[in-house]
């Protein structure tokens, strides 16, 4: 595996572990952007990260935030994504575990905010055959085009969350603050007017495989965490089995490679936004 030379990819922050996954005094090896890393957790709980084969590259930057361990291999010109809800303490935090996906991180992100697959991939939970229509939503750029948002999304969901007792129309906003991060803000079924959050922090190993680190911040006092976790894993494993069959594994960004419909507005915006960002890693830039 070779370390990417893509500066746009290198100069970003990535989650490489959930901090409590690595006990004190233990180390773990992993791969980020084609670069092998050794992560070591000292007895004081602090983390160090070194390149397995340095080849003259600077040591990685390491931070702990939101319970996750973040690494940058380059010189990021921005901070780790701001998610103020982590410090609000009104929701329950659930670490959803790592899931490996043999596809590009961008394929995972695109699938995450796609609404039209709900009825056919998550039948009985996030969608149903009788209500497959994707109502109109809008796409916005925020923070000087740093962030892509799909807002006002809605869908009729038979069982929108582990806490759901009946079908309801659920409103969503999707936030994509970096090519490899997406956070959903979804109507809480327990506290009307408040939002639950589900976030994906993707660790791209190479251009065609990644690990998805993810969390939920939910209003749910009823269900035990394991019950909520089983609900999420059911959804995620369904997505994963679809992602396995998407080709090419890298995400095509040329308009000539797609035949979109109105419901794909967020996907199209994501692909154009990635194209403009100058990112090469994990993208298929062939025009036909």
């Amino acid at each position, binding site marked *: 595996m070779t370390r990417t030379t893509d500066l746009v990819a290198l100069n970003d922050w990535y989650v490489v572990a959930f901090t409590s996954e690595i006990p004190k005094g233990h180390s773990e090896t992993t791969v980020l952007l084609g670069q092998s890393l050794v992560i070591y957790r000292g007895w004081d709980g602090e983390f160090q990260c070194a390149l397995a084969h340095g080849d003259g590259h600077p040591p990685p930057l390491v931070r702990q935030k939101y319970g996750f361990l973040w690494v940058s291999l380059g010189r990021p010109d921005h901070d780790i994504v701001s998610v103020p809800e982590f410090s609000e303490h009104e929701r329950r935090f659930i670490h959803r575990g790592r*899931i490996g996906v043999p596809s590009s991180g961008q394929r995972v992100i695109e699938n995450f905010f796609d609404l039209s697959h709900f009825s056919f991939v998550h039948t009985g939970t996030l969608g149903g055959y009788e209500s497959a229509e994707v109502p109109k939503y809008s796409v916005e750029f925020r923070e000087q085009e740093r962030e892509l948002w799909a807002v006002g999304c809605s869908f009729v969901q038979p069982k929108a969350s582990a806490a759901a007792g009946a079908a309801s129309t659920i409103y969503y906003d999707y936030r994509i603050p970096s090519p490899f991060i997406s956070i959903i803000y979804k109507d809480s079924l327990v506290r009307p007017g408040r939002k639950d959050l589900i976030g994906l922090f993707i660790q791209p190993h190479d251009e065609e495989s990644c690990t998805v680190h993810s969390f939920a911040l939910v209003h749910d006092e009823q269900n035990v965490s394991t019950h909520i976790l089983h609900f999420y*894993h059911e959804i995620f494993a369904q997505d*994963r089995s679809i992602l396995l069959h998407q080709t090419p594994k890298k995400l095509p960004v040329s308009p000539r490679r797609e035949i979109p419909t109105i419901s794909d507005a967020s996907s199209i915006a994501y692909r154009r936004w990635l194209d403009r960002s100058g990112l090469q890693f994990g993208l298929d830039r062939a025009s036909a």
Partner: protein
Amino acid sequence: MIQLYDYILSAECYKVRLLCALLGVKFQPIKVNVHPGGDHLKPEFALINPRRTIPVLQDGAHRICDTNTILIHIARRHDPSEQWLPRDENMFDDTLGWLGFAAKELDLLQSLRMNSITAAGSASRTEMEQAHAALTIVEDHLAEGELERRHWLVGKSPTIADIAVFPPTILAPDGGVPLERYPALWRWFDRVKKLHGFIVMPGIFPNLSGVV
């Protein structure tokens, strides 16, 4: 009521859920945090099952900690037709033979799948060859059976042999093992999916002909 220690992504647990669904047997699931919690490996769980595996079936005071034994137990107790565990001597032997095959030769497919899903690693070349060797045994058996109008692993009706072999084989792609070269397997998958009462698990999609 029967209780089942269960994890949604466990294909072993799905074998039990599927047989229960096909026979109309109700059970109460006890959900275990297998990933990322690893709760089944903890000392507390060893009090429930010293082998620290799931599924575990609790039927009254009786506890069973082995998938094949659970399938046999449910078939004996809840299938008066005796179809799912045939009492005919040869068919009984063949059924148990496939249960052993599922536990031994197909265990690799199960571990490749869980490793791949939990980002713990991918298949080596040797493992890939072993996986395909096991799949080829099922493929050849099914293809030969079709010539003799035997459409199930044992005889002309589904048995718990089909229930034990179906999940690890159909879910092989989840573990990075492709199924393109096994046409008889695909035809058999479709027959399983059309059984009355069939249920899915994540990674397995229903037969949608006539639905959408």
